C-alpha cells in the first residue's frame, strides 16, 4: 500500500483496523511495519478518534424496550391480501345429467355411419353406376360451362 492510500484509509475510517475494509488491512499493516510516516499518521488519527468517541451515547434502557414492544404488538400486523386462485369450473359427471347428451351423441354417430355406409356402396346411386368425380369434371369442361 502506498502512503497516499494509507492516508486516505485513516482519513475515512480512523485508526482502528477493525473499521478498515478487510481487504486492505494486511497491506496497511505491511506499510505500518516499514513506514515511520504511516505510524505517525496512525497515532494522530488515534487521538482524533478518541476525541470523536467522547460523544458516547448512553444505551437504551429496558423501559424503552418494553414500551416499544407493548406499543408495537398492540397493532395488528399487515398481512398481504390473499389472492385466491381462480376456482376451477366444477364439472358434473353424473350420469343423470349426462344421458341426454350421450344419447344425442350416439344417435348422431349411428346416423352418420348409416349415411356413410350407404353412400360408399357401389350402386347406391340411381341408375346403378357410381358417380366418378373425374367424369363430372370432364363433362363440365367439355360443355364450356361452369361447375358452379
Amino acid at each position, binding site marked *: 500500500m502506498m502512503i497516499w492510500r494509507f492516508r*486516505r484509509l485513516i*482519513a*475515512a*475510517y*480512523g485508526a482502528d483496523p*477493525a*473499521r478498515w*475494509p*478487510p481487504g486492505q488491512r494486511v497491506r496497511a499493516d505491511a506499510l505500518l511495519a516499514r513506514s515511520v510516516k504511516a505510524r505517525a499518521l496512525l497515532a494522530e488519527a488515534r*487521538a*482524533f*478518534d*478518541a*476525541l*470523536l*468517541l*467522547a*460523544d*458516547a*451515547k*448512553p*444505551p*437504551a434502557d429496558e423501559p*424503552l*424496550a418494553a*414500551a*416499544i*414492544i407493548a*406499543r*408495537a*404488538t398492540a*397493532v*395488528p*400486523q*399487515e*398481512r*398481504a391480501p390473499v389472492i385466491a386462485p381462480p376456482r376451477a369450473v366444477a364439472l358434473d359427471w353424473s350420469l343423470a345429467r349426462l344421458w341426454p347428451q350421450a344419447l344425442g351423441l350416439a344417435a348422431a354417430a349411428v346416423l352418420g355411419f348409416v349415411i356413410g355406409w350407404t353412400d360408399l356402396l357401389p350402386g347406391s346411386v340411381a341408375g346403378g353406376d357410381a358417380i366418378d368425380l373425374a367424369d363430372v369434371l370432364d363433362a363440365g369442361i367439355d360443355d364450356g360451362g361452369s361447375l358452379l
Partner: protein
Amino acid sequence: MIDATDEELMIRIGNGDRVAFGELVRRHLNRAVAVAQRVTGSRGDAEEIAQEAFLRVWTKAPSWRSAEGEYAGARFTTWLHRVVVNLGIDRKRRPAMSALEAAGDPVDPAESALRSLEKAQLSRRVAAAVAALPERQRAALALCFYEGLSNREAADILALSPGAVESLLVRARRSLREALAGVAAEFLEVSP
C-alpha cells in the same frame, strides 16, 4: 436469549410471535437509537424513531421477505438501519421542533463533578459538530465509525457505492477536524 438469526426471528414474528419480537428489539435497540440520535442530534427524536422503526418491523414482518422495491432481499440489519436513517433524515429536515438537547447526556455520578462537567461539555461540542454535518456524511459516520458497520453494509443502507461512502467519511472527518480544532487541546487535558 433466543438462539436464532435475525432472519429466523423475523419469520417467527411474521407469525405473530411476540417473544421473538422482544428478542429482536432488545438485540438491536441500542444501535438503532444511537444511529438515530447521531442523525437527528436529539435523544427524544431518536427514541421516537426507534419506536416507529420497530413498529414497522412488527407490522410488516409477515411480508418483509417478499417485500418489493428498496427492501427486497435485504438482510434484517440493513433493512432496519435503512428505515432508521431515512426516518432520521426526514425528522431532521422538518422545521426544528426541538433543537439539539441542551441537557446533554446524563453524567456518571462516580466521577468528580468538575470532570464530569468537562466531559459532558466536550461530548456536547462533539455532538454539535457531528449534528452540523450534511445529512449523508452524518449518517455514514454514525454507521461506520460509531456503530462499526463495514463500508459495504453502510453502502447498502445508504444506497450508495462503497467508494461513495468512503468519500463521505473523508469529508465528514475533515469537517470535524476543522470544527473541533480548538477542542483537541482541552480534550487531551480532560481525557485520562
